[in-house]
Each structure stands twice: as C-alpha cells, then as structure tokens.
C-alpha cells in the first residue's frame, strides 16, 4: 500500500516532467529531439550523482551542505595532481577523487556520530573549511583547460553506446544505489533510522553509525562528481559549483524525499534532479527574459514541493481515519 503511494507520487513527478518537456517543445521544438534530451540528461548527471548521496543523508534525518564544497575541493586536488603528473592514468585519478571525497564525507560523519553535533552545523562548517582549503592549496589560482592533460578531459566526454561516460556514471550510480537502498541491511537501516530513530535503536541499529555511512557515501559521490565536473568544464577554481548544494537539496525535496527523514527513494532523487535539469536547460532556449528566470525556477520548486506536501497530508488523514475506525 505504502509502496504504491510512493510509486504513484513518482509517476506524478514523471508526468510533470513530461508535461514540462511538452510545454517547452511548443516554444522550442528542438528541445524534444532525442539528442537534445540526451544532452539534458548528461548536463543533469552531476546533479543526479549528488542528489543520490544527499537523499541517503536526508533519509537518516541529516543534511549534507558540504557536497558542493567537497566537489570543488576534490576537483581542484585532482586537477592539480593532473597538472603535476600529466601521465597519471585516468582510472587512478577517479580512484583518488572517490577516496578524497570519501575521506571528507567521513569527517562529516564522524563529527555527527561521535560528537553528536547537529548535521546542519557540521556541514555548514566543513563547507566553509573545504572552500578555505581550496584557497590554501591553489593560492587562489585557476587550473585551466590547456594545463590539463587530454586524457583527463576526455573521460566524461568519451561516448559508449551513444551516451557520454558522464551519463553512464549517473546511470550506474542510480542502479547501484537502488539495489543498496532496497536490498541491503544498510539501506533498510537508513530508512529505519530516519523513520524512527528510537525504534531503530531498540531493534539493534546503531543510529550514529548509519548516519556516518550515509555521509561517507554522499562524500564519495561528491568526490567522483568533483573529477567529472572539473574535466567536463575543463576549469578548476575556488568557486566552482558555488551554491550547488542548494540545487541538490532542492532536487531531493522535489523528488519527494521528506526533509524529516525516513521517506524517499533513489528514483525520487533521480526525477527531482531531472525536473530541475529540464528547467535549467530549457530556460536559455525558450527566450524568457533572464530577469524572470530565477523567479520561474523558484516557483517551479515551490509548486513541486506543494504537490508533495499535499500527497503527505492526504496520507496522514487516511491513517487517522482508519485509526478512528479501529477505535
């Protein structure tokens, strides 16, 4: 029953995305072309990757505001490593990026777990610290396109079955974490911790440890995205992905992930990210005054969240009614 409601909500969001695409294509017919939709998906891939990590964190009643800073720091480090050792294979760079991101996620996780500091405070702090470290290691300088090796820049663009590797990375992450969240002990523990931490403790789940692993996963994904981002835009500087953490949280909220924890799916995060991605990619081509664009993006987010809130609200009423009947 519950699963059906969740599924229905995702169908609703998918429907909204399709309607949105249809509306856009009335103003700009080229938008609906498969090649363009593939391009939009590719452009949204970094957001999808981060939204997956964020979703798991939010599920455990936490929030990770440091994802964009983690991405930027990892991106800068791998770019600088590439600058110093241009011969290093890309596979090693990817491993390094994931390892770095994981380490930063673990710092967040440890602070939340062992010191029991509220996650919003921890990640607000580490967000600034990570950005600060970029200043320290880079001296505020950019790493530019001509300084990066060709192989470093080629990986996210390399095409496989018509889609760039950036898109494939996002698809792989969606599949992997769908399995993790629905078929593993960790996945179920994450839902239990967010749904009712006290009950979770009584069933033998370590709430802090689960939150720690959620932050670690979020960090790992942010690290991976850091490399992909820097190589895709072929530039690394302190401010890359500035403010992107808010997009990530917005994608999760649109995707029906409850900010109070315990509710949400990987599919929801994917659709939430795609919804934002479609809007971001459509606004430049449909000839809307740039002065209106911010307001339109904001309105779309509020409408999506309002729809979600209504869905939650109805569910609450049904439970109450059946409770009354039982009494």
């Amino acid at each position, binding site marked *: 029953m519950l699963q059906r409601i969740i599924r229905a909500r995702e169908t609703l969001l998918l429907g909204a995305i399709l309607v949105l695409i249809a509306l856009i294509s009335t103003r*700009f017919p080229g938008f609906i072309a498969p090649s363009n939709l593939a391009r939009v998906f590719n452009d949204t891939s970094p957001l999808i990757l981060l939204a997956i990590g964020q979703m798991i964190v939010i599920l455990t009643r936490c929030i990770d505001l440091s994802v964009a800073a983690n991405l930027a720091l990892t991106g800068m480090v791998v770019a600088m490593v590439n600058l110093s050792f241009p011969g290093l294979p890309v596979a090693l760079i990817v491993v390094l990026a994931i390892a770095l991101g994981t380490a930063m996620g673990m710092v967040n996780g440890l602070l939340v777990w062992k010191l029991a500091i509220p996650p919003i405070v921890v990640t607000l702090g580490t967000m600034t610290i990570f950005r600060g470290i970029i200043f320290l290691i880079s001296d505020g300088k950019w790493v530019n396109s001509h300084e990066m090796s060709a192989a470093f820049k080629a990986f996210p663009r390399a095409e496989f079955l018509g889609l760039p590797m950036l898109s494939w990375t996002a698809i792989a992450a969606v599949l992997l974490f769908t399995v993790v969240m629905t078929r593993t002990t960790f996945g179920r523990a994450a839902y239990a911790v967010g749904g009712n931490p006290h009950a979770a403790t009584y069933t033998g789940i370590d709430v802090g440890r689960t939150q720690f692993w959620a932050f670690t996963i979020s960090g790992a994904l942010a690290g991976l995205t850091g490399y992909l*981002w820097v190589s895709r*835009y*072929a530039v690394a500087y302190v*401010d890359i*992905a500035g*403010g992107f953490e808010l997009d990530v949280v917005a994608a999760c909220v649109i995707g029906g992930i409850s900010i109070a924890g315990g509710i949400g799916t990987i599919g929801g995060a994917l659709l939430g990210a795609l919804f934002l991605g479609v809007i971001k990619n459509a606004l*430049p*081509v449909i000839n809307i005054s740039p002065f209106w664009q911010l307001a339109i993006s904001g309105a779309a987010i509020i409408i999506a969240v309002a729809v979600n809130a209504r869905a939650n609200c109805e569910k609450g009423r049904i439970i109450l009614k059946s409770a009354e009947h039982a009494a």
Partner: protein
Amino acid sequence: MIRRNFTKLLAGASLAASLMGTTAMAQDDMRIALVVKALGIGFFEAAAKGAEEAAAELGNVEIIYTGPTDTTAEGQIEVLNSLIAQGVDAIAVSANDTDALVPTLKKAMQRGITVISWDSGVAAEGRQMHLNPSSNALIGNMIIKLAADELPDGGEVALLSATTTSTNQNIWIEEMMKVMDNYPGIEVVTTVYGDDLADKSYREAQGLMQSHPDLDAIIAPTSVGIVAAAQAVADADKIGQVNVTGLGLPSEMAGAIESGASKSFAIWNPIDLGYSAAMIAHALASESAVAEPGAEISIGRMGTITLDDANEAAMADPFIYDASNIDEFKSIF
C-alpha cells in the same frame, strides 16, 4: 626561582621590544589595502602583483591584499570594516555593488582614510576618485570590433554576460550598442546571463547555439563566461563556425586560442591596473595630489591620468590577445 624570574624578565623585555618594533614599523610604512571583489580570481591576483610592484618602487609602502571569499557586497563590507578598525592609510576597492559599500566607505573617509575605487566603481559619494582600467566606450567598441573583424560579410552575434546586475558588463554592453552603426551587417541577436558560474555559462552558450543555428560569434565580456562558452563551442563541434570572443585572461584562454574556439580576445593589463591604483592611493594619502575634477595624477611608469568631472579617470586601451602573443602572456596572468 631565580631562573624563573629571569625567564619572565627576558619574555617581558622581548615583548616590549617587539611592541616597539611594530609601532615603529606602523609609523614608517604607509598601509594601502587593495580590496577585491573576491579572493581567488586570477585577474585580482595579478592586480595585487602590480600593487606590490608599485609598493617596491615607492618604498615604505605595505600592500594589504584582501577581499571576501565570494563576490558579495556583504562580504566586502565585513572586510572594509576590519580594515577601518586596523586603521589603514588608504583603501583601493573594486566594488561588488555600486551603492551598498557607500556608507562603510564614508565611515572610512571620516576617519581620514583615503578611499579610491578601481576596476568596478562605487557611487561618487563613497570614494575620492575612481580609476577605470580603460574607458567604457573603448571597451564597448573593442568587444564588438573583435567579433566584427572576423566577420567581414556580417553575421549574427550573441552576448553572454555575467549577472543581470553586474555594473561593468551592463555599461560595456550599453556602450557597445551605441557604436553598432559602425559595424553594418553585424546583428546582435540576444543577451544571456551566465551569472559568472562555469556550469550556467556553459549551459547558456549551448542554448545560444541551439536557438540560433546561424550564430557566428559569442561575445562574453566576463572571464568565467568566455572560458565556459569556448568549452561549449568545442564540445558542440562548432569550432570554426562560432567564434568566442570578449574579455578574458590569457592564462585561462590559452586552451581556447589553441583549439581555435576563440580567435582573439581583449583585456587590459591587470598588473598595470593594480600598479596604478596603488600609485594613486599613495599620491592621495601622502597628499602629493588632490582628487578634484581636472587634477592630474602621475602614476609612475603608466604616465599621468586626468580626472574628469565625476572624479573618474581611464588608465589605458584594452589590449588584444591572439595566437601570436598568447604564449608570451599566458604565464603572466
């Protein structure tokens, strides 16, 4: 016991000595604060280098290079307040907002601090003079000239700016529109805004190429936008069809010039700009010059500037960079 007393005495003596030392230094050195829009931007790092050069030339001048970590007026106000508290001799600021900094800068001037703005100006009541890197009219003309020179038969060009509220970019675009009559056949199809974010600028550039299939050039008068647009053109396999030009830094644009996505671009020399700002700040703070309309201020190796009615002055013409000189400049800034 004796030893402990001796240690205390020694500590006290060295403390006193160090205190005296700093006081003496503070009296000797003129402290000029170079406040930038945000730390970590290549352009401003280069300007700081120029200011240091001026300091070395003048002697007894300490340059404090500072700014917020993101390009907000709020961040700059915090930085300015701490500089006022430190009691620096002069502040040379590149403003994130024309009006928001005025009250803070007024406070600085009331305390006897020389305040000038450079690069991105503040309203007249918030500073003693403003140094423009070049004149807005010259820049406006330059960015369209760069595009038009590659399009002898005319064509469609689009503008990719920073944010809708960026003072600099808006003025340059306005000046550019004024001289469009001199470039027959060149049509400006639209203006889009990349907010000085790499990803948004990239997306806007992609959008431009989609909604205007016959586009011949993208003019981006902002260093983040021009790099992102060049990358978008390269990724769309449109090198040779769409020329990216505008204002950028040689180190950041070297890749785009090499790939051919950009044939040429322009920028003034930020080193000269920081140098001139420091020179002017020193001249005004040491009272060897007065900021008033018509005043001439000597700026060392850059010659002399003349203040106009609004107490503003232009430093020099923007300089064009292309395949012939990019290698020489990319390692400088």
